[in-house]
């Protein structure tokens, strides 16, 4: 099974497509000393980079039926 990749010291990713996933299907990351769990800012940064290039946001309304569309707007 294809899968893992490693992060080099300079922070760039390199493919290692010939390696196999371990039995837990886990990534191999090189941990940095100052590594910590994702913060809200990091999460937002991920979303911006991966999701904001296109598409839309979900429409929410207090009138729940409006969320399913409006026949004539």
């Amino acid at each position: 099974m294809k899968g893992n990749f490693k992060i080099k010291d300079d922070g760039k990713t390199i493919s290692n497509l010939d390696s196999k996933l371990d039995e837990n299907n886990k990534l191999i990351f090189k941990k940095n000393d100052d590594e910590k769990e994702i913060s809200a800012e990091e999460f937002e940064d991920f979303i911006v980079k991966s999701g904001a290039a296109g598409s839309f946001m979900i429409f929410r309304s207090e009138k729940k039926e409006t969320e399913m569309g409006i026949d004539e707007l």
Partner: protein
Amino acid sequence: MTDEIEQVMQKVYYEKLYDNWVSNFALNLKNIWEEDSGNELIPKNISKASIVIGKGPSIKEHNHLELLAKSEFKGNIICCDGALISALKSGITPEKFPNFYVVCIEARQGLKKYFDDDLVRKFGKEIKGIFSVVADPEAIDIARKAGIQIHWMHALFDYEEGKKSFNQISAMMVRAKNHNNGLPGLQTGGNVGTTSWFFGWRILKSEVVALIGINHGWNENDSWEIITSHGFEVEPPKLDHNSSSFKKLFPKIYNPEFNCNCILDPIFLYYSKALKEFISRTPQNITTINATEGGVIFGEKIHCMKFSTFLEKY
């Protein structure tokens, strides 16, 4: 976590796309006034089943386009913009499937590649397109020149904010000339696939809408490099894979309907939760079929079956 995703998404989309929405709408308005409302596509009677075609990798894995091209399916073909050319190349054309539609909602530039093709120009006149009023004008122009019949809709996003919302201001401007009854406002669910699904049952009035190429998940044997970069769209995040955040962002899901595992990323989390919720809220007479043979679109009111079974049945 998913609610947090919706909040973050709302913030970043406004920041990154609002200016595009406004300028695209301004550039589109003259054509909107002169061209048809999406409501012109509403059939007089309940229409046949619809198949929504996305561009996800499951479509190649299971040869779904080839299966469809060889089938005698008589219903509606709804192509997401990114799937149009590959569908035509596979022999899924309006000559064979006369009820042929394409959906395009996005404001970002670069979508013209989805319409700039000899096959689109060959079959364009027989293709009915539905475009959001904020979609990329350049892409729409290429589609228009290819002969695609342009129909317009509002992509809902801030209607809730009242008369000063962009949705309501733009709707008033559209109604100012020719479109006295306005345009349909569709929930996008964040992406063109979910919009196409809404289009199938709300506008085309199909009681059965099947999905192929839209499963909002990665396969277990996709590389982590692909998964964490959302298909090479970004540099993967530098996260400890053992952290709870990583597991929340990239959860592995077992799909009991197709007996397979798949892995989500934050974008697919955002899309899939909404689509599943909206499917669960459809009227009683609407049936949604996941025929992708994988992914995370399963649950309440979602029927899962192999695409070949769907084609035999409908």
